[in-house]
C-alpha cells in the first residue's frame, strides 16, 4: 500500500527515528511503512493519521481509488 508519510515527515523536518519515537515504534517500523513493505494495523494507522492531523485515507492509498477512477 502506498502512502505519503515520508513526504509529511520531511515537511516537518523529522527523522525516521523522531517519528518512531513519537509513535513509540522502532525506526525499522517507520522505514517499512514508508517504503510500503509493511501495512500498519488500524490502531497504528489512526495514530499516524492523528499525529499528522490527516485522515487515514489522506495518508494511505491501496490503489482502489485509482482503479475506480479508471472505470
Amino acid at each position: 500500500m502506498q502512502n505519503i508519510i515520508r513526504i509529511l515527515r520531511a515537511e516537518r523536518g523529522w527523522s525516521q527515528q523522531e517519528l518512531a519515537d513519537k509513535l513509540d515504534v522502532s525506526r525499522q517500523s517507520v522505514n517499512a511503512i514508508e517504503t510500503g513493505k509493511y501495512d500498519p494495523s488500524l490502531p497504528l494507522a489512526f495514530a499516524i493519521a492523528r499525529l499528522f492531523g490527516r485522515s487515514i485515507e489522506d495518508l494511505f492509498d491501496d490503489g482502489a481509488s485509482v482503479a475506480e477512477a479508471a472505470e
Partner: protein
Amino acid sequence: MTQPKGFRTASRRYKLVFWPSMGAYLAVFFAGVYLVDQETSPLALRAGFAIAVALPLFGALWALLRHVNETDEYTRMRQLQALAEGGVITTAAIFLVGLLEAFNAIADVPLFLFGAFFVAAYGLAYCRRQMGKTV
C-alpha cells in the same frame, strides 16, 4: 500474558531481565565448572548446579517471549517470523542428527546443544530480516 506496551518500554523491560539473566548464567556456569567434579561430586550437587545453570536461561527465554508480546507490531511480526524460522531449522537439525544417531552413523550429541542451536538460528534469521532478506 502481557499486553503491548510500545517499542521503548518493551525494549527496556527486555534488557532489564535479559542481561542480568545472562550474567547469572555465566556466573553459575563457571562456578559449577570450578566447584563440581563430574566424577566425585554427589549427585545432588551435580543436579543442583545443572538446574541452577538452566534457571537464568529460562529467565532469558521468558524475557524474549514477553518482549514479543509487548513490543510494537512490526517488531513483533519480525520476531515471530525469526522464531518460526529458527524453530523449523532446529527441528530439521534434530531430525537429521537424531536419525544419524539412530543409525549409529555418529556419536550421541548432547541435547542441550540444540537449545543453543535454536537461539543461534533465531538470531541469524532475525539479522537476515533486518537486512531485508527472507527465506
